[in-house]
């Protein structure tokens, strides 16, 4: 579904990505993990050409993006959804308008937009908030709007750049189950970049481990289930006062 072939990218003199090749199979949830500065976000941004590589080829959905003209590239991007750590919603548009804009960009038939936005918001459980502005929402709700916006055009691929890194553990679990649900219900291929091991372990089928702009290894794993952490005050006290384990080193 996604193939990076010997792709390199540098910023001024610093080589961020050193001739890497990665294959993401159709239908999988593919994780990319690594330390800060390992180049994992850059790799994700290369997959929809938000970053233009100096060398190598990027292929998505059977199209070689690196060979496309700007108009064709814009067309191809409409079937590659993307969500971000900072959500990147338009603060002056309502929830409804934020989702509708991606339909407008894709020239989705005008009469059907309203019902399509409704469907997407319903899928992420935010239908009742459609007239709110992003400033009135919590982080988890904003990320759901961003997911609805990315889903509206029925993308084949969803790129997720640290989607849960600004969220607390419970909200993280909620967002991850929404993502898993998208993968299961619509067969959307998902690539998820995260520095959080738990996030990667809980939903990915295959994981690319990166270090210093190179692929260190790619492993196939069996996703453990998404754990809903307990956030009752009792649980916090228990965890804090638990004796031993970590601190006898």
């Amino acid at each position, binding site marked *: 579904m996604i193939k990076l072939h010997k792709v390199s990218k540098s910023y001024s003199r610093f080589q961020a990505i050193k001739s890497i090749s990665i294959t993401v199979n159709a239908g999988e949830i593919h994780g990319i993990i690594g330390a800060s500065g390992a180049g994992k976000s850059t790799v994700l941004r290369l997959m*929809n050409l*938000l970053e233009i590589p100096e060398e190598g080829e990027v292929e998505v959905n059977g199209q070689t993006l690196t060979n496309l003209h700007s108009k064709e590239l*814009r*067309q*191809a*991007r*409409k079937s*590659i959804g*993307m969500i*971000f750590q*900072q*959500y*990147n*919603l*338009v*603060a*002056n*548009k309502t929830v409804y308008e934020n989702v509708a*804009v*991606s339909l*407008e*960009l*894709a020239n989705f038939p005008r009469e059907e937009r309203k019902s399509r936005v409704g469907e997407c918001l319903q899928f992420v459980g935010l239908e009742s908030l459609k007239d709110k*502005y992003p*400033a009135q929402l919590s982080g988890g709700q904003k990320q759901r709007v*961003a997911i609805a*916006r990315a889903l509206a055009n029925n993308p084949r691929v969803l*790129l997720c750049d640290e989607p849960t890194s600004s969220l607390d553990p419970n909200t993280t679990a909620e967002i991850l189950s929404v993502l898993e649900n998208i993968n299961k219900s619509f067969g959307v291929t998902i690539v998820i970049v995260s520095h959080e091991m738990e996030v990667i372990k809980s939903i990915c089928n295959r994981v690319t481990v990166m270090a210093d702009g190179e692929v260190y290894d790619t492993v196939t794993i069996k996703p453990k289930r998404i754990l809903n952490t307990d956030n009752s005050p009792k649980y916090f006290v228990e965890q804090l006062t638990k004796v031993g384990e970590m601190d006898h080193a």
Partner: protein
Amino acid sequence: MPDILVQYEAEIWSSIGETFVMVGVSVLAAILVGLPVGTLLFLCRKDQILENQFVFSSLNLLVNIVRSFPFLLLVVFLIPFTRLIMGTAIGTAAATIPLSIIAIAHYSRLVEQSLLDVPKGVIEAAVSMGASVKEVVFKFLYVEARSGLVLGLTTSIISFISYSTIMGVVGGGGIGDFAIRYGYQQFKTDLMIYVIIIMVILVQLLQFVGTTISRLIDKR
């Protein structure tokens, strides 16, 4: 109403009319030309979607040059150009030429600054959704920056009123010129003070309207 205002009422009204013409044309120029120029300045900056060092530097230099002229000098300097376009360099209509030029330079800079406040991530999200440059500008940038654009225009309009008082030197007329001719040159200090009061009220009103609109449309 004070006698002196009654005595000059007709002239005051026609002066206010001239000010409105001069400022109105400047505002039109600011919106029709200054807004696109400011947007282009922003888009051509380094790391923006139309990054173009040559266009950016040229526009930047041009805007700076116009803005570095003391306005009175700009008016005089532009007399041949004004005459070329309007057939004359004298009168209210001719005065709109230098005013429009300063208006474009003034507002385009404020537009650029407002657009710089739009989070980079929003533009990135737009690009990732396959938006063209035009769509990024109209469906994202202007929507996100709208309150700054309105505040900037308010600031600009108030500056244009101030600039328009200088247009007396080329017979542009206007309320500021009226105050100088009667209040200063004919020692009618009370008349000058009344005119200043009128202008203060006008500016207060404008600022109030601008601030209110910008607050109402800001949902950030």
